[in-house]
């Protein structure tokens, strides 16, 4: 038979994940992406096991320091207005901020992806209706909407000390609110990509062999918007952390599970800025800035790398 029949271009064992390996290697070459990833990994580790680093969360009861003491060797970041170790609080705060960010992102991206893909692929009236709804949410100011919704939903749900996955109900509410208010931009972006994918030959081929819209959306559209979803999710994560911070800062957070935003709020209320007790609020603020910055670095690196135009055809 013709020689081309036996020709295989690579001798290595084939793997579904080889494209991933190549991608990780290319990512590793980007200084911005690696810096961002390093910062996120650092905070992620802190968030997962804060007790390992600073012991259990200090409460008013277990506080040992004096009021608003400046940093010493015993309290490297000083104490807050009730004598708690600020370092302890900041490290534990990472947990809340990161987890809320993660959950909120999942909710946002899930809603956004489903609506984006369905609207983009099905088109017609369905698309019209979905996009009008999306546009409605798109133009509402996210934060104002969150501000209004949070106390309403908290009232509905009851702000008792119920917990889901170790997160108190009040924070779950924040997750839901962020999800509701942020999904629309994701939906728009994903819909755009879906529209262009829909015209491609492999989608035509799937139709010709008899695949229904569900199969095509799941097996063909979704895997090819996944890179966009990931890049978008990273930025949504940053936004979620920021939104949670702000909500907490205006008092809608949970004082028993302090997030960075909570700490900032507490510091403001205790008059720390006026007393120039910078250690009470600067660390938390710095962490927020670092995390958001890290996300944008990673997001920008991903965006560049996943840009289809950069992918050379073999």
């Amino acid at each position, binding site marked *: 038979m*013709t*020689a*081309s029949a036996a*020709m295989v271009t690579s001798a290595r064992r084939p793997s579904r994940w080889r494209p991933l390996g190549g991608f990780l290697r290319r990512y590793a070459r980007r200084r911005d992406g690696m810096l961002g990833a390093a910062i996120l990994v650092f905070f992620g580790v802190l968030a997962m096991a804060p007790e390992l680093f600073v012991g259990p969360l200090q409460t008013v009861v277990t506080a040992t320091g004096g009021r608003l003491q400046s940093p010493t060797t015993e309290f490297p970041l000083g104490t807050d207005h009730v004598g708690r170790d600020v370092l302890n609080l900041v490290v534990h705060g990472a947990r809340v901020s990161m987890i809320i960010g993660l959950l909120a992102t999942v909710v946002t991206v899930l809603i956004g992806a489903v609506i984006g893909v369905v609207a983009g692929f099905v088109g017609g009236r369905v698309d019209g209706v979905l996009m009008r709804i999306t546009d409605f949410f798109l133009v509402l100011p996210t934060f104002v909407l969150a501000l209004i919704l949070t106390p309403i939903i908290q009232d509905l749900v009851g702000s008792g000390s119920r917990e889901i996955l170790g997160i108190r109900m009040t924070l779950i509410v924040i997750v839901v609110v962020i999800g509701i208010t942020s999904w629309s931009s994701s939906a728009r972006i994903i819909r755009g990509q879906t529209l262009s994918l829909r015209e491609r030959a492999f989608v035509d081929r799937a139709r010709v062999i008899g695949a229904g819209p569900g199969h095509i959306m799941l097996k063909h559209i979704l895997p090819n918007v996944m890179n966009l979803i990931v890049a978008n999710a990273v930025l949504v994560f940053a936004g979620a952390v920021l939104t949670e911070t702000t909500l907490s800062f205006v008092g809608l957070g949970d004082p028993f599970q302090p997030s960075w935003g909570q700490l900032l709020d507490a510091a403001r209320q205790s008059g720390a800025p006026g007393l120039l007790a910078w250690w009470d609020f600067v660390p938390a603020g710095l962490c927020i800035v670092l995390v958001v910055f890290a996300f944008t670095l990673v997001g920008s690196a991903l965006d560049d790398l996943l840009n289809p135009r950069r992918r050379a055809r073999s």
Partner: protein
Amino acid sequence: MTAPAERELPKLADPSAPLLEVEGLRTHFKLGRETVYAVDGVSFRLDRGEALGIAGESGCGKTTTALSLVGLLPSNARVVEGSIRLYGIDLAGRSETGLRRYRWREIAMVFQGAMNALNPVRRIRDQIAEPIVQRLGTGERDARRKAGDLLELVGIPRERGRAYPHELSGGMRQRAMIAMALACDPAIIIGDEPTTALDVMIQAQILELLERLRAELGLSLILITHDLSVIAETCDRVLIMYAGRVAEEGLVAEVFGHPRHPYTQKLLGAIPNIHVERRVLETIPGSPPDLRYPPPGCRFAPRCPAAMEVCRTDVPPEVRLADGVRVACHLYPQGGDGTPVVLPSGESGAS
């Protein structure tokens, strides 16, 4: 337009030198840490008024050769060796500024895929006028008038100059590209697959236009294409390239009438010809080598039905035969009589 044989030569030109002479051209790409030996020892010559066709399949280096001539290589490519002599002036080593006197004014290029080469937000007429203003220092109004002249020359009504590229059909766009190449009255036009994306009737029109321009303007033409039939119909001489090297070169009548190199024979045999009886079409099993790791010896040897031991170890020297054909194949050693070794048709490769 300048009548044939009355062009004003550039300052450093040597009037006795051939129009274009390329010797030992080597252009390499850097891909990460590896080198792609895209063009690896190509020589040819173009005389005044001549049409030379450079033929080969994808990856043979023909486009890279063309880009080397006009100095439009991508940033990761370099001419590492060889000379490109225009009227005896070597362009190979020159910098961007050094080439500016010659690019477009002596050698111009019609690119593949006119839609990508034309600026979608500028009118055709302005794009044609641009090099006239920039290179020749002509005023804008005069340049636009000349652009209109050029449009008429290539068969586009002058009024259509106000159109944007997307408003023109494929054939018209290609004509516009040709007009743009003619803007500074060059001596040589290089056409890189100028008719590949076009319907056969439009292709015939464009080729016919190029022939007419050659006659009227005394243009010399380098036509780069994978379509040997197009070369057979329009060119005087043909250069067959394979994997960055020259396989065979000579007059079209000679090379196509009595092909010598096995690759030429197989390639000619693989083309369907509507004007003859239906026959077995040739196939060349395998594919061209990865030019990061070119095989030692003859680069066609892995796929050649007539490959001998020496082919795998020694690079075949280029031999000029009695009828003027140049061929690089061990079947035709220096001093041999150069009779074509005809391969039996339908024989598959010896990989």
